[in-house]
């Protein structure tokens, strides 16, 4: 892969934030020219940043406005009057189920699929990165091809397969395939394992460690950051996934958050924008929360593997 060399080094120097490498104390005086450059730079960077997040802030502030005021006052961010009822109304849910049900459904999907994806991918990655066996290069190539395969190609036949198995209206079609390794995560972990010195393995093997023990005693703890990255991305993809639920979950009692929002949209009458916006914000909160908590892992994960 084209990015391998650059990716490897990126993981060694994590993040690369420009934080305080300079000598402490503000002894250096900025010349007027430098101050000017500094100001222009931050005007640009901050201006761009504000444009990027403005829509999200607009959504957030609109969720506190009465529905009939949202578009009349869409030029102002400040709700007047400021109300909470969109949240209480939205939380009551739709189709007879409270929004709490949808969040619970999403959590079940996310947790089960993520556990499966991370564990199985770590297994496979260890096999590819550390074990020598006939055909390993062949299977690795196959995996890289799968990684680039458009998912639409398997949509129809998978649907038929899962319906023949009687899995419609269950979470099986979404959760079970995750237990067979996710190519993106395998690739990420293989990359990561390659950065671990092989002397580690040899020392462990001399001490009488079998391959399996080597895997879970030595490698697993060392690749914890990669596992965390995979778990975070799995969380995002499952939480936001729509096509899986659209195809396989056709009862409101099974709907995850993404489907619930779609239901709000379909029932979109002039009156309930506020509730829809409020629940959109609620659905984004875990995503944004995880993002701020685990930023470092995310940035490294993308820089090393080109994860989306």
């Amino acid at each position: 892969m084209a990015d391998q060399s650059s990716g490897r080094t990126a993981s060694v120097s994590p993040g690369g934030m420009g934080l305080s490498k300079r000598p402490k104390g503000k002894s250096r005086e900025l010349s007027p020219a430098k101050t000017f450059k500094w100001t222009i730079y931050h005007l640009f960077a901050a201006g761009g940043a504000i444009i990027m997040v403005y829509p999200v802030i607009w959504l957030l502030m609109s969720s506190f406005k009465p529905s009939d005021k949202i578009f009349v006052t869409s030029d102002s961010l400040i709700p007047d009057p400021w109300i909470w009822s969109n949240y209480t109304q939205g939380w009551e849910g739709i189709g007879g189920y409270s929004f709490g049900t949808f969040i619970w459904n999403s959590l079940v999907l996310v947790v089960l699929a993520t556990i499966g994806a991370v564990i199985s991918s770590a297994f496979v990655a260890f096999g590819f990165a550390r074990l020598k066996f006939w055909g390993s290069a062949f299977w690795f190539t196959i995996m890289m091809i799968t990684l680039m395969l458009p998912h639409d190609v398997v949509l129809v036949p998978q649907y038929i397969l899962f319906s023949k198995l009687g899995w419609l209206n269950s979470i099986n079609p979404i959760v079970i395939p995750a237990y067979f390794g996710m190519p993106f995560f395998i690739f990420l972990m293989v990359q990561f394992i390659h950065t671990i010195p092989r002397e580690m393995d040899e020392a462990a093997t001399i001490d009488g460690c079998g391959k399996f023990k080597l895997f879970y005693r030595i490698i697993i703890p060392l690749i914890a950051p990669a596992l965390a990255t995979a778990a975070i991305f799995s969380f995002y993809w499952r939480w936001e996934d729509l096509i899986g639920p659209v195809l396989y979950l056709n009862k409101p009692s099974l709907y995850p958050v993404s489907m619930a929002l779609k239901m709000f949209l379909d029932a979109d009458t002039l009156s309930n924008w506020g509730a829809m916006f409020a629940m959109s914000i609620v659905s984004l909160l875990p995503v944004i929360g995880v993002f701020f908590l685990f930023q470092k892992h995310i940035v490294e994960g993308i820089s090393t593997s080109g994860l989306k």
Partner: protein
Amino acid sequence: MRTAWKNQLTGYAFISPFIIGFLAFTLIPIIASLYLSMTDYDLFTTPGWIGLDNYVEMFTKDKKYWQSLKVTFLYVFIGVPLRLAFALMVAMLLNTASKAIGLYRTIYYLPSIIGGSVAVSIMWRNIYGDQGIINLLLNSLGLDSVRWFADPLAALWMLITLSVWQFGSSMLIFLAGLKNIPRPLYEAASVDGANAFHRFFKITIPMLTPIILFNAIMQTIGAFMTFVPAYIISKGTGGPLDGTLLYSLYLFRQGFQFFDMGYASAMAWVMLIIVAVLTSVLFLSSKFWVHYESKEG
């Protein structure tokens, strides 16, 4: 000998989840899909063999199919280059030692994290509404409001801007690449009197070409499969006048709304071929524009 066999078995034991999953959920389905594409399968009756009829129908009779191809190509070939250009521009902007970089990087990346969600598509639908902030912005610039949901090209523009808005992950990959360009290269160039413009085109761009190639391939494939925004923004119809009928959405409609699974499978195979051709073209073209250090010595 025994240990050799044992090594083989251990290796396969570890990668067996992938092999089983690949066979069950990828390879066999793909082959099945090729067979289905030559049938009139509708999920309820037994598939009837109709040879290449689906493909013939698609290319010679189905105007919507051509429309969805057109829309998708516009979406991919406008959206991906714009996204990469923004990604590179912002990455270069952020590739300086300032204390605020961490914060900026976070903010610029945020849309990529939430962008695939239904919530963001709902948001996008509404900022482009008749009274939405985009029209307010146009008005404040002295321009007329655009009825984004009435004009097919305007509607497609909503999808393209939503895709460009999520340039964050490419940006992070570029940023990692920029940090790997050896400083002395720039210093030597400056000594030789190269200005910023020269340094950008003679050093930065050539050194980044492997990453540009990687980003271009992954983003193109990803863009081809875009579904959620089109599905949510058009409320599942692909409207107005099929202006947002992206390929995936049309495939979904054929397969799961009209239950023409044979036709949807044929569409899927054509998509596979298009994506394979595009990827190969990008790979093959890389000989002419991607710079690999090792080869040049």
